[in-house]
């Protein structure tokens, strides 16, 4: 009995110590990145830093998905990422919140985006949660924005299965390419994300896009309270170094 308790307390101590170390590391990194940002604020503009990153990176993702977890991101962080992505010529940003809260707060967020970043959201005619980003001067940017919730999860597969079954066609032609084509024709279609950014300590898909996630690189964004440009660019640098072998 005594020895069992002793091990339990030891186990508990290990977890508490790890938690403390993680918090110290997080605070240190946060302070460090804020100090660095403050020091370099007057020297290099965000546009310049992004241009530099684009030159140094071998590849830039076309589609980034932000996987929101338990650690809530403020509107400033998300709108910053959207604005920086627009500057980096990233074609698509998706925001996935498995709780669905972000989708509920969509209108407030889009107002914030408009007010703070001068970026307007033009919803597509097919789906209100998918649309394009438009600059204040009316110039349509080629970047699209998707706001996703768990309906963009396994649900899309069961809906597709129902549509295919309803047709009553022979299943001889049913293969991966056929399903891929059918998914891309759907109103809810979201292309395969190349980079998945997560902000919690834990990496998890939370059910996001099971069909589209096969080659997505998961990168953790280290930040303290609000994400700054260095945190974002670090993630792009990490992605650029990822080498995909496609099974070879």
């Amino acid at each position, binding site marked *: 009995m005594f020895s*069992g308790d002793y*091990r*339990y307390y*030891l*186990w*508990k101590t*290990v*977890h508490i110590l*790890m*938690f403390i170390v993680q918090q110290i590391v997080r605070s240190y990194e946060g302070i460090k990145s804020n100090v660095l940002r403050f020091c370099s604020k007057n020297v290099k503009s965000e546009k310049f830093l992004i241009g530099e990153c684009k030159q140094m990176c071998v590849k830039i993702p076309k589609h980034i998905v932000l996987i929101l*977890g*338990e650690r809530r991101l403020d509107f400033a962080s998300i709108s910053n990422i959207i604005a920086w992505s627009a500057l980096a010529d990233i074609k698509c940003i998706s925001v996935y919140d*498995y*709780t*669905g809260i972000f989708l509920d707060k969509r209108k407030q967020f889009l107002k914030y985006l408009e007010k703070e970043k001068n970026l307007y959201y033009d919803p597509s005619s097919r789906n209100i949660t998918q649309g394009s980003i438009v600059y204040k001067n009316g110039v349509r940017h080629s970047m699209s924005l998707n706001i996703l*919730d*768990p*309906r963009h*999860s*396994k*649900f899309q*597969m*069961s809906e*597709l*299965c*129902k549509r*295919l*079954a*309803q047709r*009553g*066609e*022979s*299943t001889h032609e*049913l*293969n*991966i390419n056929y*399903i891929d084509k059918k998914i891309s024709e759907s109103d809810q279609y979201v292309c395969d994300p190349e980079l998945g950014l997560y902000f*919690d*300590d*834990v*990496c*998890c*898909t*939370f*059910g*996001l896009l*099971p*069909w589209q*996630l*096969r*080659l*997505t*690189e*998961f*990168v953790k964004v280290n930040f303290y309270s609000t994400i700054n440009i260095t945190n974002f660019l670090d993630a792009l640098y990490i992605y650029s170094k*990822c080498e*995909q072998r*496609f*099974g*070879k």
Partner: protein
Amino acid sequence: MSWVRDSNLTWIQRFAVRVIRCGPIPEHVAFIMDGNRRFATKTHLKSKTDGHVKGFDKLAEALQWCLDVGIKEVTVYAFSIENFKRSKDEVETLIQLAKEKFAKLMEEKDKLNERGICIRIVGNMSMLPIELQQIMAEAILLTKDNCRAILNVAFAYTSRDEITESIRSICNGVNDKELDVDDISEELIRRCMYTNKSPDPDLLVRTSGESRLSDFMLYQCSTTVIYFSETLWPEFTIWHLLGAIIYYQQNKRTMSVARKHLNNYVAKPAPNTDSERVEAFVNQFEKRRIDHLENLVRNAKSNRSFDINESNENEISS
């Protein structure tokens, strides 16, 4: 090298295992065993095949660690459908290695049954050479009633193929009037997958510093803790496994909360859903799978007896 091993932990490792066991232990752990070829290059092994052999040895060792820790089910990504794109020589070598290892496994069938180990192959077996299919079928059928520890070997597997095949089976079921369109649900797709007998993994470990899922269990990973390790698979140790389990223990609560949220979004069954019809279909689906495996074994046995008869006749005539 054997599939079934005895525990090789030192006293300090055994003590660490006992401490970790004070917390929640994942029931089902999935491994993407990456880095065998890089290990071969790094350690100047003769060929990449030697890296794969080392990788298999590590698998056997890791399975024993999982048993020591109390993990009941393990799924390993051994060979992806995409791996068929590798050079012909490498694919042939890997298939040959699999044949040898499964033949070895059949030699150890008494040990497997004694320890209650169940082996399942998850993947599109029809893409594999018939002899490998037959030996795999034998291993599956022989151990199917064991339940103390379960090993799922993902061979000729990708998640997209698994989803596609599941959808195909369901569409066939609707075409044959075994199912109604209203019976289709996320759950039904899950129940017609290669991995239908396994719960969703609680922890997924990918080695060698890669940070993607590479088409592995995408449908099943919605509340799985994903742990990326920098270590190459042949260099994986019990300490790495314990590190992954601590990471799981730290984040288990987050996963439980996420599961509750995601369950709110699961579509309610349509009014015309007939659960008995669904059960009958799933049972029939499973029966067909077992029948197919039994046919493979039967054909293998008849081929073997044909070969023996033929060689006997040759000996008599000579």
